[in-house]
């Protein structure tokens, strides 16, 4: 799909003409991220993060494939093989720090990308499919990151694996056999480590596949924009290349600056010291905490401390933790306001800032030890989390009086749109 004014790929070089006839791959790229893709002219820097997420995935795949050449997925030597990478492999330390912090960088940009979607209601028709695929990508990312964290086979790797796979044992009847089947044993050991390595290698390529679908689905309605007003005429758009390739290039530079500053100057700041202790099934760490990007969900899991009627607290926690993400699948139908952008939704905007703070508070509690005060705060935070998406959002979208929208993207950028004058007030013409 494209807008009627999209530039057509028109090769002049004989080889490119020949290639276009046999395999129109350059045409595909041209229409996807080249001059053949018209994009709203008013995108702000929040629209950089999709490209950055794609870049982070490529970075993870490249560093990960090289690390896999030196890593040994065997419970007896996995920890030492990581130290071998850190000490004896040429530039191995750089690769490993780039990969470990690359996961954090990937989550930072993806969380920003998701919250961009929340604020601008990017999930609304006609872009529901893009959103749904995005949530699938996020779920796959979480699975991949979790299994990747197990591979160094340190204390947090082992106990994290034990806690997370232990969640399955909360399922009635089939829970325990299911957990043993997933682990290939009664506790995480060589069988679990091997399958986690295998899946950790596989899943990024599955993510890549879903990203292709995500971008394909994006190119059908075209990109959303900060006003939420759909593209009407050619003057509302600019070609992706060179406008957004240039803008994304600058954004990428800023991203890499921060990322490499962390990789080279504070590579262990986001990790847990206990993971530099080799896995020991006989010694439980004082506090088992996952990586920071799981903290909000970990807080929700731990918030259920009392059995609810006949449902055990643990099962409630597991259900809630998964529901906290699954609820995003239903956002396009929970938020019924016809206005997309938070800029024109005064009431929605207040609740948006509240959910941002709520998730940050949940994250802080999830990373803290399970002391009473943090659990109590998590319970209030988790309550708001569910009420926000499932109760408040539908109510807000039906009672809110949105602010007036600009006539068009062009008007929002230039302050006036020739077409708007003609359409809005024909008598004046």
């Amino acid at each position, binding site marked *: 799909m494209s807008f009627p004014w999209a530039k057509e790929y028109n090769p002049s070089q004989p080889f490119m003409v020949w290639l276009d006839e046999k395999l129109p791959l350059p045409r595909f790229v041209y229409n996807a991220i080249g001059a053949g893709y018209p994009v709203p002219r008013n995108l702000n820097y929040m629209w950089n993060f999709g490209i950055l997420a794609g870049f982070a995935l490529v970075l993870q795949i490249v560093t990960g494939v090289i690390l896999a050449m030196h890593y040994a997925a065997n419970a007896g030597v996995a920890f030492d093989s990581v130290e071998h990478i850190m000490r004896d492999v040429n530039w191995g330390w750089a690769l490993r720090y780039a990969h470990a912090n690359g996961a954090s960088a990937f989550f930072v940009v993806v969380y920003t990308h998701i919250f961009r979607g929340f604020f601008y209601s990017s999930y609304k028709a006609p872009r529901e499919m893009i959103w749904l695929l995005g949530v699938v990508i996020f779920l796959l990312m979480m699975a991949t990151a979790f299994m990747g964290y197990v591979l160094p086979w340190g204390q947090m790797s082992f106990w994290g694996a034990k806690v997370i796979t232990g969640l399955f044992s909360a399922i009635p009847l089939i829970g325990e056999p299911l957990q043993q089947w997933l682990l290939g044993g009664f506790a995480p050991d060589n069988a679990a480590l091997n399958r986690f390595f295998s899946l950790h290698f596989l899943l990024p390529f599955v993510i890549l596949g879903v990203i292709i679908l995500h971008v394909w689905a994006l190119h059908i309605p075209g990109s959303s924009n900060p006003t939420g007003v759909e593209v009407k005429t050619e003057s509302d758009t600019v070609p992706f290349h060179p406008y957004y390739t*240039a803008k994304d290039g600058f954004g990428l530079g800023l991203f890499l600056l921060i990322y490499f500053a962390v990789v*080279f100057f504070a590579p262990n700041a986001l990790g847990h*010291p206990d993971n530099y202790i080799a896995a020991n099934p006989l010694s439980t760490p004082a506090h088992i905490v996952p990586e920071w990007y799981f903290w909000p969900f970990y807080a929700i899991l731990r918030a259920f401390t*009392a059995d*609810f009627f006949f449902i055990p607290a643990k099962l409630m926690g597991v259900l809630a933790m998964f529901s906290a993400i699954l609820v995003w699948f239903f956002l396009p139908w929970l938020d019924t306001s016809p206005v997309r952008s938070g800029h024109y939704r005064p009431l929605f905007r207040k609740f948006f800032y509240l959910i941002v703070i709520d998730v940050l508070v949940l994250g802080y509690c999830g990373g803290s030890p399970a*002391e009473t005060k943090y659990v109590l705060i998590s319970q209030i935070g988790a309550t708001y989390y569910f009420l926000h*998406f499932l109760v408040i959002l539908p109510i807000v979208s039906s009672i809110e009086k949105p602010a007036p929208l600009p006539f068009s993207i062009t008007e929002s950028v230039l302050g006036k749109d020739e077409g708007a004058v003609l359409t809005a007030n024909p008598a004046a013409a």
Partner: protein
Amino acid sequence: MVRLFGPLVGLFFAVALLWSFGVGLVQAIREPEAATAIQLFHKAPEEADFSFNGVFGKFERPQLQRGFQIYQQVCANCHSLKQVAFRDLAALGYNEAEVKAIAKNWPTKAKTFDPKTGDAGERANTPADHFPPVYYAGTGNPPDLSLITKARHEGPEYVASLLQGYTEQPAALLKQFPDAKTPEGLHYNPYFANLNIAMPPPLTDDAVTYSDGTKATLKQESEDVAAFLTWTAEPKLEKRRQTGWAVVGFLLVATVLAYLAKKNVWANAH
């Protein structure tokens, strides 16, 4: 459907959470959690002025050598250093012959196995060997020290503080927690996670005689060995920072150029 069941699901979780909250709050008010001895008496590591602190910091070779001397003469009796090879010591400023001599004279020999006869034997270590394992039969499990400064929060400061931190158990602690008396065979140390450590105080003033003439105070020894163990945990620290400056410098230039390119491209589109 979604608009009907959505709010119901939301209320279900909300009520369950508020129920947990209520139960927890009542319990917290009825039986407030009493502070533990660890919460009250555990100390965070003290700041130390290491040469490798900060983004420009570097190791001091003489200090690393002094730290190695402490490891060799004191720590190595109980603690292994299995991730480090003798050849790595060249980075401390030892020449090839010195490294060979250190390996050869290391008291614990490398184990050998003759596949023809099945006999186990011993040979002197070579620079290619890692530091041999250490077997300890007494109380406690002396951890391997290769990564100790990365395996603790504020690792270098932690090691230095712990080694200087042995004291008598405070009277206030015993008064408030009569049951918390340090058990027989353990030693009170407020920098240790649970306050009672199995390791007896390993260092004292003049525990070693430094070959470079530095006065061997307890503080000096503790910081020297902490510096050495920072090197064992992160031998590529200097290379890492050096590379970091080159990368950040390049990216600064590239990002400024990218910004100018962006400005140029967008000049007529705003």
